[in-house]
């Protein structure tokens, strides 16, 4: 086909899809030509909304017409897949997805692949790393391959802020793919370093098409408000003055819930969304936001890449993200198809602490990695994760993350929840980890600089993403004055402080024993009731007060006892004859807990019992890195002595961390015929 003929045909497909007068945007046709006519490999860096999907939809149609196999789109997020499937249908392509939430459809989708009736298959990188799933893909792929699309390709680069280990194996697959299979990598956010890294990993045959990152509708603002109550107050003041619906991004799951509850209490409809939210509930939330049924979705970065709501009016950051790439991506959700949208970055005092915590916990540690691989090598057979936890003192969440990285790197392989050392040579790549750490720290600094900068915000962000010579935007707070600097009424801040103090923090009972001679579920009659804490330990209110008291070795203030009493009265009003039992301590000098328990019982006018004794010393639970170790630390350290209370018990401690202490004592009390047991702690550590 001649070049003109090709363009004409591509144009026809686009018009079939989008209507009579649709035309390609700049560089779209060029991309399609590279993929279809030259079967090339292409990296497209274009802002969200440029129309990457039009490129692979039209390419898929043209390739299918030439007899190629289905296009396979690898994308990390379900939200994106749902949007894409809808869009593909509109242009007459049969698109399907296989992911963890549509298990019932798998057989049908695989049959469709085999019969050739499916044009596009969307899958997550995690699925692609599933051995069984891969084996099932082989037959449909063995006859004729079509286009391969790697969405959010910046995840390939470990320079990128959200490098995903699952992408590393995709790079290896591409290495083994004959150069005749067309590959399209797309991303909305990649600076030069990331682009160079992607090209380096995917080979020099990779062509790059890169466009401008400006978004003309968006005005960027920054407001520094150190404390959470101030920021909550700001939201309560600002949101009612803003039309349309939007997203508030938080760094932690707990904060999404807190902010959403606060807004709802202020009569602003809000809903929390995070990786902990059920897949179906998430889908529903996305729909409600899209149809403006809810004013605000308070989300972690789980609501991210690919979510498409063209009329999103604002994005507020309750805490600052740790990278300009992440920030640009998140504000880029707003104002796609409307004239004006606002992004406000609220900068808090706790931001950099949270960044540090995430960074420290996300990077693999050499001795962890070596301890795990050596242990597995000595076993030389499938080993349950539980056994690894017993042998190696590493936090469960960290171990899970580490095993994932080791699996991707080919040091270990997984079957269900068991692991074994592979037959490959493997060494911990310390240099790589250092490199990544340095890059992250630089990104953090860029975010701090951004917040402090007197220059045009959009120009600043664009230049950090290597968009060449961006002009002044004329819309941001530094160009055109702030929309976010309204005064905060004192009473609103007081209300926010009160809200944080009153808000119950829940303690979920442990459901399973983890070793040390006790395995399986905690028997129902030995299980704790759902519990409460007054606050999170890291909270500026009660959390900080408790920490100060502990460090100074003094007792807590009356106000804390009163707040706890109010909470318990409210919470357990239907449990008469409640008795306070406290978690004992073998060191009489550390009397914070018994003192607090006595005063709490006095305030509540209920009895207190010293029926639990400590019989063996324990290490502080915070030194134990995982559940098995924590359990083994406290198991057998307590006993119940008479006389025991009859009826329900309020089990009191200062800080709830692993919950094993409370679980073990709860089971001992149950064995002695005491219960139900309600755990209560002044503060809970964040999980």
């Amino acid at each position, binding site marked *: 086909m001649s070049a003109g003929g090709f363009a004409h045909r591509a144009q026809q497909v686009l018009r079939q899809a989008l209507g009579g007068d649709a035309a390609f945007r700049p560089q779209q046709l060029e991309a399609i030509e590279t993929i279809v006519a030259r*079967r090339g490999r292409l990296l497209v860096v274009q802002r969200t909304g440029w129309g990457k999907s039009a490129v692979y939809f039209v390419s898929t149609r043209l390739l299918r017409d030439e007899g190629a*196999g289905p296009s396979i789109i690898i994308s990390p997020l379900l939200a994106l897949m749902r949007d894409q499937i809808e869009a593909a249908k509109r242009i007459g392509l049969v698109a399907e997805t296989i992911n963890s939430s549509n298990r019932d459809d798998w057989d049908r989708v695989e049959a469709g692949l085999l019969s050739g009736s499916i044009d596009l298959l969307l899958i997550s990188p995690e699925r692609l790393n599933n*051995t069984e799933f*891969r084996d099932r*893909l*082989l*037959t449909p*792929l*063995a*006859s*004729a*391959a079509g286009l*391969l699309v790697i969405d959010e390709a910046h995840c390939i680069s470990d320079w990128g802020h959200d490098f995903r280990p699952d992408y590393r*194996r995709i790079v*290896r*697959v*591409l*290495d*083994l*793919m*004959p*150069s*005749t*299979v067309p590959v399209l990598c797309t991303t909305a956010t990649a600076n030069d370093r990331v682009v160079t890294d992607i090209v380096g990993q995917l080979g020099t045959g990779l062509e790059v098409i890169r466009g401008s990152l400006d978004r003309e509708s968006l005005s960027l603002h920054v407001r520094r408000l150190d404390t959470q109550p101030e920021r909550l107050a700001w939201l309560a003041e600002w949101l009612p003055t803003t039309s349309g619906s939007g997203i508030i991004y938080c760094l932690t799951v707990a904060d999404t819930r807190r902010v959403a509850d606060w807004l709802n209490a202020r009569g602003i409809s809000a809903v929390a969304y995070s990786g902990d939210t059920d897949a179906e509930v998430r889908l529903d939330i996305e729909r409600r936001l899209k149809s403006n049924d809810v004013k605000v979705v308070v989300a972690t970065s789980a609501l991210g890449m690919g979510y498409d709501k063209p009329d999103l009016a604002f994005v507020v950051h309750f805490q600052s993200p740790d990278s300009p790439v992440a920030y640009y991506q998140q504000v880029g959700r707003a104002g796609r198809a409307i004239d004006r949208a606002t992004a406000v970055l609220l900068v808090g005092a706790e931001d950099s602490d949270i960044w540090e915590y995430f960074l420290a916990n996300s990077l693999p540690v050499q001795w962890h990695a070596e301890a795990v691989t050596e242990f597995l*090598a000595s*076993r*030389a*057979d499938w080993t349950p994760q539980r056994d690894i936890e017993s042998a190696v003192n590493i936090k469960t969440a960290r171990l899970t993350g580490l095993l994932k990285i080791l699996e991707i790197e*080919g040091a270990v*392989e997984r079957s269900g929840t068991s692991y*074994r*050392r*592979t*037959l*490959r040579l493997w060494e911990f790549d310390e240099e790589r980890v250092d490199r990544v750490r340095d890059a992250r720290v630089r990104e953090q600094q860029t975010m701090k600089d951004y917040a402090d900068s007197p220059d045009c915000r959009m120009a600043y962000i664009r230049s950090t993403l290597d968009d060449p010579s961006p002009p002044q935007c004329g819309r941001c707070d530094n160009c055109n004055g702030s929309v976010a600097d309204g005064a905060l009424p004192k009473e609103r801040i007081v209300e926010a402080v009160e809200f944080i103090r009153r808000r119950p923090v829940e303690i979920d009972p442990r459901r399973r024993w983890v070793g040390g001679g006790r395995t399986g579920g905690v028997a129902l009659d030995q299980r704790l009731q759902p519990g409460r804490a007054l606050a999170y330990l890291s909270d500026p209110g009660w959390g900080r007060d408790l920490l100060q008291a502990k460090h100074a070795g003094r007792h807590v203030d009356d106000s804390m006892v009163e707040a706890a009493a109010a909470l318990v009265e409210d919470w357990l009003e239907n449990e008469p004859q409640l008795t306070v039992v406290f978690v004992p301590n073998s060191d009489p000098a550390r009397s914070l807990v018994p003192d607090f328990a006595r005063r709490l019982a006095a305030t509540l006018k209920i009895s207190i019992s010293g029926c639990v004794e400590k019989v063996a010393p324990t290490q502080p639970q915070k030194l134990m890195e995982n559940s098995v170790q924590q359990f083994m630390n406290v198991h057998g350290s307590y006993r119940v002595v008479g006389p025991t209370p009859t009826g329900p018990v309020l089990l009191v401690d200062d800080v709830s961390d692993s919950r094993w202490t409370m679980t073990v004592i709860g089971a001992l009390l149950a064995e002695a015929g005491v219960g139900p047991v309600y755990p209560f702690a002044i503060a809970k550590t964040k999980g």
Partner: protein
Amino acid sequence: MLDQADLVTLALTSRIVPSQVAPLTARQYWPLTRAVDLPWLMGRSAAEIAVELSIAGEDAERVARLLDRGAALALAMEQLEHTGVWTTTGMADRYPEMLRRRLGDAAPPLLHGVGDANLWQTDGVGVVGSRDIGPESADVAREVARAAVHQRLPIVSGAARGVDQHAMNAAFEFGGHVIGVLADSLERTVAKPSTRQGIASGQICLVTPYTPKAPFSAGNAMGRNKIIYALSRCVVVVRSEEGSGGTWGGATEAIRGKFTTVVSWTGQGSAQGNRALVDLGARALESADQIEGQIESAFEQPVPPARAFKADQLSLF
């Protein structure tokens, strides 16, 4: 690291992913490599292939269909690599040269394996024999292993029950090296903890010309025997029935094809086949104290020269 020629070899010959047409056999593959630079085939239509190679349309169509499997193969190969199974093709530098010298166009186009592949860059001492054996045969297998380890030579064997197992276990115990050539189930074999530890220690290399999941078949077992002979400067037949069975078939084929020096045990525990092999041209090994001498003498024989292949017109399809 697999290059484009390796990937084409995989697409043409591998059975690791399904195929609508039969993959090429060794005797179809090797002549093709002499007729065309393999990477050229990538992305070509059947018509282009037919013209370039002057072959029939349906043969060209078969080659083109095989090459369509590239994406599926990439997924399957990455999965194999991920678990530590490597792949060497006839196009690779590290493909053992002796396989081509001794087997010619019958040499396997593909090998999958685990462990240290450097072990096969020099010839080893092969040990073959029946699965069901008595204590005398087990002792002979152990003695051959002892002698090989003493001379710092790897033992090459079939990893089957009986003679193979005794020879390999002994070489391992004596601190030597072992090349196990599998006819089936590489994937299942490497699941055994003791095998994994041996592989990790660098003492064991397992290799198969078949897919890592291949089930046992008599045909594959015969194809495997060839490779044992081709990786060995001498092969000791510990016990063989006469006229039938894999050991007999493999030994007579090796003697006929002059693959390598065949040594047949004729002492305690030997069977009628052992004597018959001597009559066919195998060297007789009568007592254990002759073992080292036999190995030394075999290693003094010249290695087969590199073969010259004629780039004939392709008529093999």
